[in-house]
């Protein structure tokens, strides 16, 4: 499909969003309520992942390297 401008493409994407979620059939104020709830939920997910995911990943890596790294240290100690 050929889009004459980026705006047209964005409006087509918005149309697809309306159709897929089914809110195409709702009244405009209901559409606003749904979209605001959805985007605030997505915003909260993004914020939480931005704040917490690096910390969790670092801790997980430390935990797993602790298991394997700790094992090789103890065997070295026994040999020595």
């Amino acid at each position, binding site marked *: 499909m050929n889009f004459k401008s980026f705006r047209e493409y964005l409006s087509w994407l918005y149309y697809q969003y309306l*159709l*897929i979620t*089914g809110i195409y*059939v709702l009244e405009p104020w209901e559409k606003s309520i749904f979209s605001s709830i959805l985007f605030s939920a997505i915003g909260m997910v993004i914020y939480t992942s931005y704040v917490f995911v690096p910390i969790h990943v670092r801790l997980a890596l430390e935990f797993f390297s602790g298991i394997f790294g700790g094992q090789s240290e103890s065997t070295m100690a026994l040999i020595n």
Partner: protein
Amino acid sequence: MAITAANSTLPHLSPNGLQCEDIKSNGCHNRREKNVPGTGIASRQHKQESFEQAPMYVAVMTYLGFGIVTLFGYFRDFLRAVGLEKCNLAQERVEQKDFVPLYQDFENFYNRNLYMRVRDNWNRPVCSLPGPVFDLMERVSDDYNWTFRLTGRTLHNAINMGSYNYLGFAENNADFLKTVADKTQQYGVGVCSTRQEMGTLSIHEELEQLVASFLRVESSMTFGMGFATNSMNIPAIVGKGGLILSDELNHTSLILGARLSGATIRVFKHNNMHSLEKMLREAVCSGQPRTHRPWKKILIMVEGIYSMEGSVVRLSEIIALKKKYKAYLYLDEAHSIGAVGPSGRGVAELFNVNPADVDVMMGTFTKSFGAAGGYIAGKKELVDYLRSHSHSAVYASAMSPPVTEQILRAMKCIMGKDGSTEGIRRIRQLAENTRYFRARLKEMGFIIYGNDDSPVVPILLYMPGKVVAFAREMLERKIGVVVVGFPATPITEARARFCLSASHTRAMLNQVLRHMNEVGDNLCLKFSRLKYSSCPNLCDETDFELI
């Protein structure tokens, strides 16, 4: 043989779905092997019917859409109950609050919160005859479809893809309708009586003899209403102590007739011969539920073409089963009479079976004949019995004379008795339109259900938002379509149903297909994952090279 093949415009009727190269070389061969009707040998193999399943994400999105709209439905019901919003629908009165609630079941919830929001797509007022093009009255709503008002403008010449006008007999050409006008002068319009009292006119006798000769059976009887033909005659044929084996997707009229009869009803899977055979064996072995006496009668109820799926019954296999287990067959040809078969005589001709093998042939005149009413045809004893024992014959008003004459003229046209080849031309045009339309839609990538021969084409749309958007976009492009959702179809399989007509020209079909292509791209409706390669020359071939 060579001359006939060259002079006639051979329809692309290939009994076994051959590729076009084979048609070119076998064209003469197939014409030579003209099958004699009544041999009872099914010479045409049942074409594969496709019921393609959509990808998983489509089902997920459909449920998601329904879920979100249902949540909003609960929210709006809450607002209405609290009083923040005015309720436009019927409500119970304060004095009734101690009684059983009237409007709390799922059907009413669905009606209030889903159907009302989008009901501008149904019940559109039509102000012309339902031919290949028609006029619609423009209707707008100011309060989100609770009330409508007509603006006074008319949408002229919208292409009609929803009427059951298979052979194009819904026409107002004065020459064709001359006999109808004459008979109206002669007999009047109302009959003012039932068939048993004073309502059997000579024109009814003429029609019944013509129907019997058209279907190649002994005798027939006609009724004023197609739905009532089923629902009022099945109770006369089967009673308590009988067993009805009914297809899963049978029409409401058949189900109502079966329930009214008082017989035991068992449902077998749609068009599934293993399921039917299993039920027949079990019925013959075990008999009636508690007493184990044999069933008085076992009646298999099927339809010729199922209108929501577009699938065709497996008639030859059912007849083999019925002969083996000594059951009876009731065939409802509402959509298939006049629309399928090389000369329009329905599925019995399509499968080349002896019409005497089908015990009760039923059909309606509403679809291919452009009139109203129904018929039941079969052996003389059956029809004589129905004349005295059917509720419709005893109590219902007889068929009106102009309608009867319309059926007579349409049937004579199909049989060729009016001296022209108009009937055969229309049947071939319908077959060609069906094949072309289905092939092009499959090529574009839509999911189509049903048999390649059926003029009913359901296109699956699945999601509730897309169903509504499709209907509205097609109306903007001046094409009238019928979309169907829950509860007429399963909740995840909403569809648009196209009914092709012999009066659609190739140009109209091309216009519809072009718009469908655009709308399909805009709305992302092309879910099919099968690669469909049609012969590049299939659509425009008009003559064959002869070997």
